[in-house]
């Protein structure tokens, strides 16, 4: 869309873990980009590869013996081949990450202040006093009351939401250009989740950083993301602007995510459309389209042909990996969106029942 260079460009990233049972294909040829000041939402279930792709960006899968191929270009440097000591200068400095569970990501035996000053001093040559000043400032920035007092407390003295604020403060210590947030609000209550999401949006406006937010919650991405990538079994199956993903989703898995969850703005008694079956094994993946065993609209050849990510006619920023004809997909979604069940949608599109 923009002529501007992306801040982060991931090209054909593949991450494999050799295990006793076989090779786990955690990430299988993923390409995406993130621009300055924008937010990319990566949506998927456990085992879809969304976390592994982000950990790999920071070189955090190297120690697990991952086999990585492809390129991760951050401001022109390829993070895949960057030596560990070079990567350390970027990690926590130019790219920072916050994790799902703030309690296990904070060290329980060190005061919050010490952990924050460590983050500052790891990348900057400043005195302890200066670093502490900065830590107090950071705690204030993320909305922790009485930061000068709270800095001398231990993580267990903070509530869940406050701990996540501390994590965000730590991530922001060196004013990163890119913040990767992996399920940042999944462990939190709704009212606290709303506070944390609002905080991330405010900080993005003030500091102008790019955000990659990883989540399974369609509501959270709708609120946060400018662009969305939907991942399934290690691949991106659909990517588009957030508005398009919600108004004109093209992939049956995306439909499933949208229609299998009750939503406050759908009729109360509307039937949910579950996605049948379970997420596939990443060691022995289904043949053809990886989603075909769970797809209500799969046709016989879909278990043979592996779909490529192709541009959707009429929108050069909307890509989908689906073997159904664009016209058929449009009919199917129109039916599902109107509250019909998959069988009715199939009949309306003139397709036979799924073969799986």
């Amino acid at each position: 869309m923009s002529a501007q260079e992306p801040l982060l460009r991931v090209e054909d990233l593949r991450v494999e873990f050799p295990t006793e049972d076989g090779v786990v294909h955690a990430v299988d040829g993923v390409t995406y980009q993130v621009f300055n000041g924008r937010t990319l939402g990566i949506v998927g279930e456990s085992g879809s590869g969304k976390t592994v792709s982000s950990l790999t960006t920071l070189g955090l899968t190297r120690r697990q013996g991952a086999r990585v191929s492809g390129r991760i270009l951050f401001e022109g440097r390829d993070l895949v081949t960057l030596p560990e000591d070079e990567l350390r200068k970027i990690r926590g400095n130019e790219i920072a990450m916050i994790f799902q569970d703030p309690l296990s990501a904070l060290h329980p035996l060190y005061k919050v202040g010490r952990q924050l000053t460590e983050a500052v001093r790891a990348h900057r040559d400043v005195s302890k006093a200066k670093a502490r000043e900065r830590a107090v400032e950071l705690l204030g920035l993320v909305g922790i009351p009485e930061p000068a007092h709270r800095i001398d407390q231990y993580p267990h003295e903070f509530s869940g939401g406050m701990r996540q604020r501390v994590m965000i403060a730590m991530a922001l210590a060196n004013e990163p250009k890119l913040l990767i947030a992996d399920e940042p609000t999944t462990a939190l209550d709704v009212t606290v989740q709303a506070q944390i999401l609002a905080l991330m949006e405010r900080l993005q406006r003030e500091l102008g950083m790019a955000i990659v937010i990883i989540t399974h919650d369609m509501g959270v991405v709708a609120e946060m993301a400018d662009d969305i990538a939907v991942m399934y079994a290690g691949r991106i199956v659909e990517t588009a602007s957030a508005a398009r993903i919600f108004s004109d989703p093209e992939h049956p898995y995306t439909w499933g995510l949208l229609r299998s969850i009750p939503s406050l703005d759908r009729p109360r008694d509307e039937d949910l459309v579950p996605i049948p079956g379970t997420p596939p094994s990443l060691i022995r993946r289904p043949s053809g389209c990886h989603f075909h065993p769970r797809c209500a609209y799969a046709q016989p050849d879909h278990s043979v042909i592996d779909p490529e990510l192709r541009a959707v006619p009429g929108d050069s920023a909307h890509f989908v990996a689906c073997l159904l004809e664009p016209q058929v997909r449009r009919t199917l979604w129109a039916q599902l969106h109107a509250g019909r069940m998959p069988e009715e949608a199939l009949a309306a599109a003139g397709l036979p029942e799924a073969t799986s």
Partner: protein
Amino acid sequence: MSTRADEEEGSPLGEERGRATPAAPLPPSARTGEPLVEVRDLVKHFPITKGILFQRKVGAVQAVDGVDLEVKRGETLGIVGETGCGKSTTARLIMRLLEATSGEVRFDGQDITHLKGPGLKAIRREMQMIFQDPYSSLNPRKTVGSIIGEPFAIHGLERDRAQRKRTVQALMDTVGLNPEHYNRYPHEFSGGQRQRIGVARALALKPKLLIADEPVSALDVSIQAQVLNLLRDMQRQFGLTLVFIAHDLSVVRHMCDRVAVMYLGKIVEIGGGDPLYDFPRHPYTGALLSAVPVADPSASPSERRLLSGDVPSPASPPSACRFHTRCPKAKERCSIDEPLLEDKGTGTDAACHYPLTREELVAMGVRSSAMHATPKDG
């Protein structure tokens, strides 16, 4: 996999069940619409102690503090609230898994608050529970067959082994598990299937009351709908009364006829699902609804009013109205004079001196089906 298929198959289990549970004489109140469970002024305080040898009580966590509740026959009652609001404790008190500090629980017209021994065991047959974590709530060393058959063993039913196996397999079929997997162990199943095992075990004795405590929050998104649909189908098929506990307001709205909202050990609002979601009167209910992220990027989240601060400690809850420390509408009266749960004339009972108005709700950015009757155009 499809739970719809189960429904069509009907229940071969229906007859089996009849034999499994000797027909109890129907109590006089056995009609729909009448309360199956009545909870009066239920209180549960967990003592906080100090000292190792000589333990002194220095305080109490007021987990549940004066809850009144009725669950009508055949209905689904939802209990929502954030962590620590007492929703699970309330469920455990009803189940008699915890001993109440004071108050009364009546089940089927009988006071069960202090039942012991055989009386308690008999009541336990009538109420079953499904837990949040399908990994820790199934014994890893037992086969699925013996897990689902355990309730029969406990209550000395279905003594004939072959007959018990047939009954268990019929149950497995009903909840969408392959009956051939009778001899498998829990680790061989996925999270969603394990939750089905939990449902089958809960249904084994054909209970009158089923309490589901966060039954889908540990499951992957694509699996949640499968389990929600299963619970709904089972409720219709067996005529169950269901208490559904969850923190997810959308899920509760989808599942429940009536909803109770809890905050710090008290019910702050209770009413039918439609009025409660369309016109919540308690500011806390409004704040909860306003905080739910909506899967619609065109909605502007900036209009949402955020609750400030955290939930106070239940060991020293705020005086009078417990929400007054975080309430945007709080006035002096709210910290002195405790509001009672009373009919606000719009279909719900709320415990608030200054209930929300329509205008305030709109200003909070609360979206409801009534205000957005038509789904957005594609």
